[in-house]
C-alpha cells in the first residue's frame, strides 16, 4: 500500500496533469522527498529554503491540518490520504497588511508559492 496524495490544479504541471499521485514515507518530509524524485520541483513549491512548510500552503493528512500534527514531521502510515491546497487568502493592502506581508515574504515567500 502507498499514500495517496491529492494535487491542486496549480501544482499539476509537476505531475503531468495528474490530480492524484502515490508516494511513500514515514513522515510528510519523507513523502515530499519521495514525490520530488518523480515530480521534480514539487517539493520546492511546498517547503521553504529554511526547511519549513510554506505559510500559504495547506497540507492535510486524512482530515487533519498537518500544522497540528508536527508539520513536516507529521507521521504517515500506508493508506493515509494527503491533500495539498493552496491557501485562499488576500485582502486590501493596508499598512497592517503591508507589515504582515513583508514578514510573510521574508519567512515564506508566498509569491513564489502561489503565483508561479
Amino acid at each position, binding site marked *: 500500500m502507498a499514500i495517496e496524495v491529492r494535487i491542486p490544479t496549480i501544482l499539476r504541471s509537476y505531475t503531468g496533469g495528474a490530480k492524484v499521485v502515490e508516494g511513500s514515507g514515514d513522515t510528510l518530509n519523507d513523502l515530499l522527498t519521495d514525490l520530488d524524485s518523480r515530480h521534480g520541483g514539487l517539493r520546492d513549491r511546498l517547503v521553504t529554503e529554511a526547511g519549513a512548510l510554506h505559510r500559504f500552503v495547506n497540507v492535510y493528512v486524512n482530515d487533519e491540518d498537518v500544522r497540528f500534527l508536527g508539520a513536516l514531521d507529521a507521521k504517515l502510515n500506508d493508506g493515509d490520504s494527503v491533500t495539498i491546497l493552496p491557501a485562499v487568502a*488576500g485582502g486590501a493592502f493596508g499598512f497592517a*497588511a503591508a507589515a504582515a506581508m513583508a514578514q510573510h515574504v521574508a519567512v515564506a515567500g508566498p509569491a513564489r508559492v*502561489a*503565483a508561479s
Partner: protein
Amino acid sequence: MLSIDRSIVDAIVAHARRDHPDEACGVVAGPVGSDTPTRHIPMENAARSMTFYEFDSMEHLRVWREMDDRDEEPIVIYHSHTATEAYPSRTDISFAGEPGAHYLLVSTREPDTEEIRSFRIVDGVVTEEPVRILDAGVDPHAVQSYMFGQSPATVDYECSGR
C-alpha cells in the same frame, strides 16, 4: 468574461455588507469545465480583519472535498475590500492560487453603491474581465453587460436600475 446570475451577485453583496467592516470571502462552485457559477458558498474569514482574509483551513478542506464529490470546481473566488476599490491588491496577487477561477472583488466602501469587478490572476498577472449579470426571468437578449477598462482607475458602478 464572467457570466453570473443576479441572485448570486445579490447574495455575495449581502454577505459582504453583513461582514463589513471586516472583509468577507467565499466561493461560487459550478460543474467542472462549465465556467458557470451555480452554488454560492459563503466562507468564514479566519483572519477576521478589515484588511486581510484567509479561508479557515478546515472549512477550506471540507468545501473543496464537497466540490470534488459533486464534480464541481471553484468557478468564482470572491472577497470584499471594505475601504478601498474593488481591485486586487499586491497581497491578493501574491496569494492567488487558483489559476482557473474568476477572482471577484466587491467593495463595500460606499453603502449605496454596488462595486463589483472580476479578474483573472495567473502567474502574478492580473487581467480584468467584463462581468455579465444574468437576470432570471428577463429576456436573455436583454442581459446587462458591464464592461470595464483595464486600468485600475476607480469605476463608479450603479446597479439600482433593474
